């Protein structure tokens, strides 16, 4: 079937099968392999992308569900000139990843959090991010990075 949606700010029109998940569509047909797939049962959050600004697990969302919607993947976060989004920068600065497999999903979930709550407390971060697993970092640097990114974003809005 024919599927039209906005992907990282650009219109996409593509053929997909009814059974294709959004993760399959992104990775296999659109070559956007930044979205990672791990548990495939909506537990780990590795496959998180933003649909209409909200974080969803692309491993279990059928592709056609995003018709006419706005999808943002990790590839769409940095500015066209390569400047990293403050969350991306904070993840680097605070060593908030090791293997990096959870990172795209983690960063997008964090973006959804900060869009909704620009000044989250530590509790807010932990609560919101609980659906994203990281097996490497013990989470502590991720919480720190998200809070730092919140600061930077606040500064830039001033």
């Amino acid at each position, binding site marked *: 079937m024919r599927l039209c949606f906005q992907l990282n700010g650009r219109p996409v029109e593509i053929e997909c099968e009814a*059974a294709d998940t959004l993760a399959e569509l992104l*990775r296999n047909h659109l070559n*956007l*392999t*930044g*979205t*990672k*797939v*791990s*548990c*495939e*049962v909506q*537990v*780990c959050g*590795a496959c998180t992308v933003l649909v209409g600004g909200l974080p969803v697990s692309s491993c279990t969302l059928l592709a056609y569900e995003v018709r006419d919607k706005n999808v943002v*993947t*990790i*590839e769409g*976060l*940095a500015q066209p000139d390569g400047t*990293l989004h403050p969350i*991306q*920068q904070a*993840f*680097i*600065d605070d*060593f908030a*990843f*090791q*293997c*990096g*497999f*959870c*990172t*795209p999903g983690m*960063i997008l979930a964090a973006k959804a959090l900060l869009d909704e709550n620009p000044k989250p407390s*530590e509790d807010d*971060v*932990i*609560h919101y*991010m*609980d659906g*994203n*697993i*990281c*097996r*490497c*970092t*013990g*989470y*502590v*640097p*991720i*919480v720190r990075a998200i809070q730092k990114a919140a600061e930077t974003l606040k500064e830039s809005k001033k």
Partner: protein
Amino acid sequence: MSEQKKTDFHVVNHSVPRRDGRAKVTGKALYVGDVKLTGMAYARVLRSPYGHAKIVSIDASRAAARPGVIAFLTGDNLGGLNPYYGHAVKDHPLVAIEKVRYAGEPVAAVVAEDERAAFEALEFIDVRYEELKPVLTPKEALEKGAPLLHERKFEAGALRGFEGDVTAGRGTNICQEAHLRWGDVEAAFAKAAAVVEAEYYFPMAYAYAMEPYVAIAEVNENGVTIYSSAQHPFMVRHDLTTVFNLPVSQIRLIVPFVGGGYGSKSYTKIEPLVAACAWKAKRPVKLQLSVEEAMLTTRSDDALTWMRTAVDSNGKIIARQAKIYMNTGAYAENSPLVCEKATNRCVGPYAIANVQIDTYSIYTNTVPASSYRGFGCAQVTMAGESQIDELAAKIGKDPYEFRLMNVAHPSEEFFPKMRAFDGNLKQDLEIVAQAIHWKEPRSKGRGRSIGCSVSDAGAYPLTSTVVRVHADGSVSIMTGSTELGQGSHTIIPQIAAEELGVPFENVRVVASDTAITPYDRSTGASRTTTLMGRAVLEASREAIEQMARMAADVLKRAADEIEVIKGGVQCGEARLTWSEVISRYYGLPDGEVIGRAYIRKSGDFAKLPVFWETACTGVEVSVDEETGRIRMEKLATAGDVGLAINPALAEGQDIGAATMGMGIGLFEELVYEGSQLVNGSLLDYRVPRFSDLPRDVKLQLVENRDGVGPYGAKGGGEAALNSMPANIANAVYDAAGVRIRQAPLTPEKVWRALKEKKAEGRKQ
């Protein structure tokens, strides 16, 4: 090594940002799952529903006729291959042959144009099984008349990692046994002032690297090329040379970024299977396992440890004896080495005059066990560090003070025939005790524990590298060390930048392609900083020596007039950068200088282990007496790393390891019912999440520069896991007075123990 004592570092010992940072936050980092080759086909695997069964017949003709199917693989169509692999024991067929030994074992594979076609074809493979009685625990497997898993006798693999023989295939289900003794334990226990004796259990755990196993293979006239998520490409290459009967030069393993390993991706996993599929299909073939399938591929050995430890009247530990039964699952994988290591590590970080440890790794009809971060040490430290606290309680001593007075001292030869102790546990303990406010009173329902461990690092010193200095002064390092997230591709250029006096930015890594990068035995056992680090340091120095000679040549001066300065040379008034030296030497602004290094078991590395891996961890937990639920409130670590090439990365290893250890202490466990794994999915296997993290975390590094790695560095990254399960058990005892000797300490176990204690209290 006087230069090892250099102090004015400009790149090393700094937390420079990760080299892979930008790639990993933008989704550009390439993992095997992201690789697509032209003409690539896809494999899926059919797995055994039975724990132990004979394959009476297998017929894939209906599957082969399905649309899109290109080829299939079964145990009876492998003519031309040597299907058994294993670096310690060649017991593992790349796909089941004649029988299956665990539920989930690959029985057949289908290759098709796309994954879905391959998957859909699986149900058209007709397999007839004749069930055999499964053995599921070491106890069952050792009973008289127990069915045998392996009937054949095995040769010991040359790369097994230890000197003793292998036990597998001698008419029993014993895969490996190891025995360690010194002194006279019987006499020591007879005269002891106090003894504690008990049985402890460490569960089967799943490493859950978030990237499940994945490999792409191509077989053609050039040989076999495999992209894999393997930690040890050179070890996998070795196994494949026998499977395909090809020379080393015709097997090529390429490892891009790896999405977590923690030991679970060490040694050969799915590579022989996918290579055989590619050989059948005559096409590049990709095999991407799901997490559920990864859980059916490897796990940690679970261990039942009987242990007794004795003290004299001064509170000095005088004897330890243990008998350990490890459940190794259906195939040996790396368990023979885990068995050897568990035996050594069971002694603990204490100087004990009388020791007897007997370990048995037993084949059972369960998922094969292999390496897992900590590698035998975590299993036995659950017993060892629990027992230290029990013993302290028995003689009325503070467990922290008790440790302080018994831990091995710096340079003490606490373990016969091995390297003298190169850490400082007293210092580590003190740091952690302070960080968790050991001496201060506990609030109600809270308990604390401090634990430590020591591992004779399994890092066999065999590593080589090439450092290429280009005519513009930039540098490429060829390294076989894989980037699993630990940061090897950051610390390696840090060391070269330090030595060559060039900016970190200008040093790049070419990594983990066995056709290009020089031999490095493995990336595991916390070896990379110590061994690859030293190799990079020495190769950089070799390049410098060459460039100094070249400078003498171009300046027409004697070699001893050339002085090496940061980033180049000086001779009288003349100063040349490396770029100028190379360009002037060749007469063109191009060309390069190649520095090499080979590390082997000699010199600083003659004595094993090349370092003792040690760390100390401390926790404070709260126990909810109503529900039995434990929460880790505080965590402190002291990583005894010699010198941190990159402190932030070293600390990241400690907290990562401690978090995994916490998971095993609190809830991680693979559960079997009969021969079926019943929680084989992330829905049911719980790993630590954000909400589990302790709110008070203090990570510290102890840098005494006492290792044999570059500038006195040594390995880290496992040790903070090892003591955590025992820490949790000890802290629960401290908080609630109940002693639980089985990890994980699930709410149910804690609740039951509390209930029993109450009942006993009422009786009295």
